[in-house]
């Protein structure tokens, strides 16, 4: 356990040295938040209610989406694992007496923790300052939001771990990453709330893992009954189920990849 805490701590320290990059990230996330919010405000001015969302709900979701960009890395970057697989350095990692999934998880959680404090919070604050957001008064709901956020980070990691693992079977994962980092924001309700999508498309996207990243946490914050199972608890269970399934898949594929590396010598 100690080793994972150390990995976590190292990651926090590592990311805390990227000051200008963090600042630039907050500015960029806020600028896009403002643009998306203005577009949606114009839309809701024309039609005040769409599928149970009003203007405030939509703008709130925009800033939830912008705030979580850093911790869940929905637009990337890929895990460093991906580069280590490409260069073959991963063989060294697999020899260490730690579980690769947990090791990379600890590292990524360190990154996410730093990002939450220095990117998510300031970005959301910009949204609160610029627009009226729908924030719950019930402290219990805030607890649920925190849990949903943590689960979103877990799912975000598990997905990126799987993208990176593809490198064991493909020579170069730049293409894979380009496609997933593009489709993920669309599927997650980041680009537009899934509420606005045509029913059939939204129905499909709502059961895919990416919905755990933005749509479900946003609806838990907003207290919507369009959540899986119609409740906050249903939403959290949905996220937890995906997190467990994807991490388990990651562990199974890691074992396979390890055999492959051992047998073929990389």
């Amino acid at each position, binding site marked *: 356990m100690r080793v994972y805490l150390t990995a976590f701590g190292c990651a926090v320290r590592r990311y805390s040295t990227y000051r200008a990059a963090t600042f630039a990230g907050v500015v960029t996330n806020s600028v896009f938040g403002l643009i998306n919010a203005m577009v949606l405000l114009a839309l809701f001015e024309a039609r005040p209610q769409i599928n149970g969302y009003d203007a405030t709900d939509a703008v709130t979701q925009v800033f939830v989406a912008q705030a979580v960009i850093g911790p869940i890395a929905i637009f990337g970057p890929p895990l460093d694992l991906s580069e280590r697989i490409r260069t073959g350095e991963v063989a060294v990692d697999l020899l260490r007496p730690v579980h690769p999934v947990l090791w990379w998880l600890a590292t990524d959680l360190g990154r996410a923790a730093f990002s939450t404090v220095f990117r998510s919070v300031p970005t959301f604050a910009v949204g609160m300052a610029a627009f009226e957001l729908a924030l719950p008064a019930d402290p219990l709901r805030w607890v649920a939001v925190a849990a949903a956020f943590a689960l979103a980070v877990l799912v975000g990691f598990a997905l990126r771990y799987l993208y990176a693992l593809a490198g064991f079977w493909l020579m170069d994962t730049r293409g894979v990453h380009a*496609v997933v980092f593009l489709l993920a924001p669309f599927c997650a309700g980041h680009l537009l709330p899934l509420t606005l999508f045509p029913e059939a498309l939204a129905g499909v996207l709502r059961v895919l893992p990416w919905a755990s990243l933005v749509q479900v946490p946003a609806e838990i914050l907003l207290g919507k009954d369009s959540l899986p199972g119609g409740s906050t608890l249903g939403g959290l269970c949905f996220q937890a189920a995906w997190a467990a399934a994807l991490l388990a898949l990651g562990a199974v594929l890691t074992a396979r990849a390890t055999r492959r590396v051992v047998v073929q010598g990389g």
Partner: protein
Amino acid sequence: MAERTSPGPAAGGRAAWEPAVLDRRPRSVTAYPRLAWAWTRALAQYPVSLAMLTFAQACTTAVELLAVVIVFGHAGRLGGFTLDEAMLFYGLTGTAFSTAHLLIGTVDRLGEHIRRGSLDTVLIRPVSPLVQIATEEFSPRRLGRTVPSAAALGYALSVLDIAWTPERVLMVPLLIGCGALICGSLWVTAASVQFLLTDARELVSSVTNGGWALTEYPLAIYGRDVVRAVTYLVPLAFVSWQPALYILDRPDPLGMPDWLRYASPAVAAAAVAVAALVWRTGLRHYRSTGS
């Protein structure tokens, strides 16, 4: 080893070490296509990645287009414009920005070059560093955004009821060209910030990709202050908003002067001048600080 054949100074008044160069065209002009082609071939060594990257670029456009369609589908009209008219804004912006992205987009990696020290190897060659960096990893995959954007523009131009006077026929390509120049200048100007803040690449993105996202919709929806800012401060209004008003022959819904729609060429020239100045200043700063 053969001996040097160039004559000494006595022979032609030329210093002994001046190389024999017959081609007097600017090196940057001739080097750009060569470098772009070399990078294309380099990336073609990974055909699966190249295909997926091209696909990803096309998906970006498709996904954004879908968002525009969904928004207009719910609203009917936004800022007084229909979906078909919105396609005109989307197509103009997409064509201009994706052309700039194709030709000069990688300049936003400047900070990385400075941090890794590879800007030094760029500086020892007799070709503009801007050309060398802009062509880095040049690949036709970026046409994945240009082609669908141009298709959207073509669609809008064909379905909309446009009075095709000879003046308009000539002006449309000019306005698109000016738009691309403005976008390219914006990219270079924003990227030059990295001469000062080397890990501020995302800041560049907030201007370039942010500008791209902003101008995909008719600017009227953002209100007067935003439109003023992107007309007089950062000239994004000349990428899609003013050209579209001209093509549709609409009065400015925000009451800004109508002559602005003819100002594109002048604005483009000014944008290029500013970009050149900022880039040169940045380069001089680099040489004098050695960061």
